[in-house]
């Protein structure tokens, strides 16, 4: 209703002398644009802002619903920062990201280049390749738990058939604390390498062809062209992909919960599971909230630094 009224006054103002009319019209455009965004902004502020305010508030209280809450100052933060368990989880979260990201980026980039080289005839294969992206993480977790099973799992069977595993030997992918984190990373790699490929492929499509022509005339090989042209030009795209994947990898949850519940011996408990366990299993809302706040802050800082350094290091112009 409000929008329609503003609109009619615009029509009136259009008849005013040009200079004044344009100024008024511009101002009203701005107000109209704001009006269009307002509902979404309010909903986001309420549905995200309110919980985050509550989260910070929760982090300052101790006690659960049964014992009654009382103000605890920063003691939850102190407990979170000094807890060996939280530190170990933070370390595993970082390690998990370090396992997942390089593989996804290298394989994803290679696949994007492959699709680019082979052109439109590879379209059908491209669609098949993006399919994992649409699969729920939960299903991926289940599926890989089945395939990674020590005895009836197909991966061990595959390794045996190509001669890597001998006789009755089998790898306890999800049961061995030393490799569990690696094993829960496999579904994530399977699920999201396609995402990296897709975004980088779109970026490659948008690169100007004449630059490559020029480089070819100057005698640059494909490897040189990749390092000197493709990577620098794709820098913003790479930055976005990396940061999104970094943030998502660090908050991995569904796949790990389904596959190992964070075990064995907490070997695959990353921050998401640590917070979930503190909250659900131990019912310690205050501590869970404090860990969440620290986790979120750390993630924002890392994402910000990553974006700043990768996107435009030292103000390099395109």
């Amino acid at each position: 209703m409000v929008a329609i009224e503003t609109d009619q006054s615009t029509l009136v103002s259009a008849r005013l002398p040009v200079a004044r009319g344009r100024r008024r019209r511009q101002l009203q455009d701005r107000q109209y644009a704001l009006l269009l965004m307002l509902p979404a902004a309010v909903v986001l502020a309420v549905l995200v802002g309110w919980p985050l305010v509550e989260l910070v508030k929760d982090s300052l209280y101790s006690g659960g619903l049964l014992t009654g809450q009382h103000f605890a100052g920063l003691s939850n933060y102190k407990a979170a920062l000094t807890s060996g368990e939280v530190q170990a989880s933070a370390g595993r979260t970082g390690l998990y990201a370090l396992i997942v990201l390089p593989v996804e980026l290298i394989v994803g980039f290679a696949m994007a280049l492959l699709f680019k080289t082979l052109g439109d005839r590879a379209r059908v294969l491209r669609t098949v390749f993006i399919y994992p992206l649409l699969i729920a993480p939960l299903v991926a977790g289940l599926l890989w738990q089945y395939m990674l099973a020590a005895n009836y799992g197909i991966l061990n069977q595959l390794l045996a058939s190509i001669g890597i595993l001998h006789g009755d030997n089998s790898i306890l992918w999800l049961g061995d604390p030393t490799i569990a984190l690696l094993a829960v990373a496999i579904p994530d790699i399977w699920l999201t390498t396609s995402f990296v490929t897709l975004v980088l492929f779109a970026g490659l499509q948008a690169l100007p062809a004449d630059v490559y022509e020029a480089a070819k005339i100057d005698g640059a090989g494909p490897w040189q062209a990749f390092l000197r042209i493709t990577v620098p030009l794709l820098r913003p795209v790479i930055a976005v992909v990396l940061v999104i994947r970094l943030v998502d990898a660090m908050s991995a949850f569904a796949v790990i919960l389904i596959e190992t519940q964070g075990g064995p011996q907490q070997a695959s408990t990353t921050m998401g599971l640590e917070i979930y366990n503190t909250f659900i299993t131990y019912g310690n809302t205050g501590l869970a909230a404090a860990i969440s706040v620290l986790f979120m802050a750390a993630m924002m800082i890392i994402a910000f630094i990553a974006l700043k350094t990768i996107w435009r290091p030292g103000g390099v112009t395109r």
Partner: protein
Amino acid sequence: MSLRSGRYLKRGALWVLLAAAVVFYGFPYVYLVLTSFKSPGAALEIPPQVWPSHFTFANYSSVLSQPGIVKAFVNSIVIAVLATAIAVALAVPAAYGVVRYRTRAGRVFVTGALVVRMVPAIAIGVPFVGLMARLHLTDTQLGVALAHITIALPLSIWLMSSFFEATPMELEESARIDGCSRLGALARVIVPITSGGIAVTAVFAFLASWNDFLFALLLTAQRSETVPVMIGNFQTEYGNEWASMTALAVLYSLPVVVATLLFQRKIVSGLTLGAVKG
């Protein structure tokens, strides 16, 4: 001549490489579907067989006779439809306002949506439990839908902004000259031409809700339990019944398959524009 055959050889090698990668990539899902047609014993066979020795629909009928399965699917659908409808209805005018008028507020708004995208779901999920209890929305479809909007709305804003970027705005101008109001031009001219983009956005908003496990796990009990929560419980109870579990997983991913087939090409572009994973 030799140079040319060398090039063909190289091309051929690349195709083989690509085909191998795609097979490697597609295999796990094919294996999931094949396993769902095996007998419960065959699914646990050592060594495992890829191809079922005989096909059976028994797993599907046993899964479909599980108590609560229909309700879980209804819950998942209702929640996803609610979240999608609200997210898209809010995102379309907002993204249009950002792209059409290019104000500073618009840039702040879009950046804000990206920052929200970076907030880990668990940090919203933990306080959401208490908030929903206070609003008497614990274990309700609306409660879960509200949580899903925190994922679906930023995603929809980003997708719709990209679609509007690719839409010629002069059409709106000419509609205005023909006497359309601003809101009328948006509803009668802009929305129809971007309907493809809106559909893709809706598909992704739906999938974001449909695929979510964390929020549903935190916010539902019996009444509003969604399919992923049911799968999780099923796994805890019948950990080794892989034949039934794979059948359930196939049923659950059916909407994804349908959506992919329906919107194949547009989904690829949509995926490229927005960061999808939740």
